């Protein structure tokens, strides 16, 4: 090994310093950013997937492939879904942050001024893949621009324990709320309540409370945007919920986020819960770890069902995810290239298969994919994106609807009522809060 002398080190350091000084002066003179800041890097922020295999697939295989194919660098960052909105706000206000950020539902409308129009990519993907669902279009596009590129819909269905429901006398899943309450009452008496979050959490809380409200005929606003929350129908739904909660639910649900019901179901403390398919997929992945009390693999005892019917019909509200390309991004072109790349059928299919049906794509062509026929338990999720109703129904899913959703007004109305507030006061409170938004 060559001997390093003190003098040569000094010389080297001096040289480097001089070069950097010269570089600095040169950069200041041209008024341009140094070259390293212009490297084509895309910072992608998304939620931590409830199907961990998919994030692993992205990190280990797909992103390195994309980097090679596009000649860019991609930094994937994953955070809890509840932390995405604060990150968007921070990014927009400081003018720096991730280039692509995942948005839930109609949050895109809240950030319309700060995102890049993705119509071109969205329309191309829609055309190529059998047409985009109306629901995805309504949630991501205000008719003038696509504020987010629709990514996938996380279908929300009730995952339930077949054998426990049979023991309680239900050979098939209850069709109406009354029937569900009756079965739930028997289940809770046996220490196997229904688990449902009424907390401030993005997926399972509004995924239950919105369609529940609609199924009773209650609505936040009419089609013209006039607040009509304080109605007989809403009141009925709240009154029923008060009894339903006490009779049939795990009362800890008031403090749950989107992960608590997964843990509770897997540890066999609840018999049913509205969820994406993540519980079932987890039991499939670890059949030896998750077993029923009789020792059978738990996945053989799980089925899925849509939410029951109410007097006004049967509804569903499924979490739609899209990606917003931020206006402040200095890497808009590479980010667009990446979106195009990952949405090509060949690439998207890899990711889609890894989800095992947890995510439903936003275009119709995928309905015919073998993922849905491979496992009949997953079949109900196939049409989640087709049948979903957007928040703000019967009005448009605009920024006001998004604000109401972000403030968890509908969810809080039920939470307050089951905590002891009178149904009338809870409805009045929600109506008042909505009126502050819809002015």
């Amino acid at each position, binding site marked *: 090994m060559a001997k390093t002398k003190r003098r040569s080190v000094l010389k080297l350091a001096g040289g480097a310093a001089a070069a950097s000084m010269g570089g600095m002066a040169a950069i200041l003179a041209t008024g341009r950013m140094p070259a390293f800041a212009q490297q084509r890097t895309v910072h992608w922020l998304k939620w931590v997937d409830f199907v961990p295999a998919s994030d692993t697939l992205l990190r280990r295989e797909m992103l390195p492939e994309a980097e090679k194919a596009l000649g860019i660098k991609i930094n994937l960052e994953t955070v809890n879904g509840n932390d995405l909105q604060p990150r968007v706000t921070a990014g927009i206000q400081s003018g720096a942050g991730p280039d692509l950020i995942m948005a839930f539902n109609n949050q895109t409308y809240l950030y319309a001024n700060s995102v890049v129009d993705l119509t071109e990519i969205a329309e191309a993907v829609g055309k190529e893949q059998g047409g985009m669902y109306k629901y995805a279009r309504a949630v991501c596009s205000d008719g003038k621009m696509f504020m987010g590129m629709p990514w996938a819909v996380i279908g929300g269905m009730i995952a339930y324990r077949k054998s426990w429901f049979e023991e309680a006398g239900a050979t098939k899943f209850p069709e109406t709320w009354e029937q569900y309450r009756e079965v739930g009452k028997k289940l809770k008496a046996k220490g196997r309540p229904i688990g449902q979050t009424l*907390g401030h959490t993005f997926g399972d809380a509004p995924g239950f409370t919105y369609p529940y409200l609609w199924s009773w005929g209650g609505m936040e606003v009419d089609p013209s945007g006039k607040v009509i929350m304080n109605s007989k129908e809403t009141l009925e739904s709240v009154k029923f919920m008060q009894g339903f909660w006490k009779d049939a639910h*795990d009362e800890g649900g008031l403090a749950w986020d989107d992960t608590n019901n997964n843990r509770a179901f897997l540890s066999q403390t609840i018999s049913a819960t509205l969820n994406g398919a993540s519980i079932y997929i987890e039991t499939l992945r670890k059949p030896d770890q998750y077993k029923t009390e009789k020792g059978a693999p738990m996945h053989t005892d799980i089925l899925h069902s849509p939410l029951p019917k109410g007097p006004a019909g049967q509804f569903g509200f499924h979490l739609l995810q899209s990606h917003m390309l931020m206006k402040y991004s200095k890497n808009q072109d590479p980010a667009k290239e990446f979106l195009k790349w990952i949405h090509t059928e060949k690439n998207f299919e890899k990711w889609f298969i890894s989800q095992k049906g947890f995510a439903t794509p936003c275009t119709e062509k995928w309905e015919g994919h073998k993922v849905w026929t491979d496992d009949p338990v997953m079949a109900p999720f196939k049409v989640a994106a087709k049948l979903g109703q957007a928040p703000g129904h019967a009005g448009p899913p605009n920024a006001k609807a998004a604000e109401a959703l972000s403030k968890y007004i509908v969810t809080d109305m039920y939470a307050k009522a089951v905590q002891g507030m009178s149904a009338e006061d809870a409805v009045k409170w929600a109506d008042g809060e909505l009126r502050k938004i819809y002015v």
Partner: protein
Amino acid sequence: MAATTLATAEGKRPSARLRRLEDERWLALVLLTPTAVLLGLFIAYPFVEGVLLSLSSARVGDPGQFVGLKNFYKIWNDSIFHTTVWNTFWYTGVTTVFKLALGLWLALLLNRHFRGKAIIRAFILLPFIIPTVLSTFAWKWMFDPTFSVINWTLFQLGLITTRINWLGDPDLAMTSIIVINIWRGVPFFAITLLAGLQTISPELHEAAAIDGARPWARFWHVTWPLLMPVTLVVVLFSVIQTFADFQLVYVMTGGGPANATHLFATYAYQLGIGTGLLSEGAAISLAMFPFLFIIVVAQLLYIRRVETR
């Protein structure tokens, strides 16, 4: 800078500008400038920005326009804000009383001589040293609706038959976060008060004892008055910190269930950063200012009175 020093060292007369520093007023100005700049940049500027924000209709990505006091009017009529104000006072009041009482008790115990004193004193500080978010996560698991170890223990001991809904019940949730805040805050009180105790000369106690004062009388007439200035400063710090607390509530309950445990900071965050209603968020966090200002001024005046007595 180096060049100037060299020049003076070579024996030239200092320049007129430098000679001006011989005047104390100029020197004071120069020495104070860095602090003033720092304060201006990191305290005054954000504060003024916050005030301007609260008077506008700004949302995320939209600078909005001047709307006067509309945001304050809006939060004044907001039932969640009312709960927030009540919660903050309740949270600060209850925790401060307990932290002071327990901290003082602990300080008195630690002030005695016993084996392993140094180690015990170091351990006492642990709750205060561990990052709040980390320790709060541990507490969150202890209060978990399904897996609470506290419930498990009580159940195994036969004290309860059904689960206690720690974080799902508004009152219990508030109690839970109060307990954690006390757990976290006691060491700060204990160590600071201990430092105060050690400045009290043992001779005073001896003299009182010789005069026949019982332990309680010695505490009440010797220790307590001498400890008063330190106590007041500790309470002041604690009140300010607790009033503006964020991390603990954010991690534990996120302000829930149904907004029942919001404090000023968490509600401002939820509206401003979560929903993107920056102006309303700013109005809520500014609403904390007058309350805090009154508390701080009252306490500072009291401290001055005690000190000059």
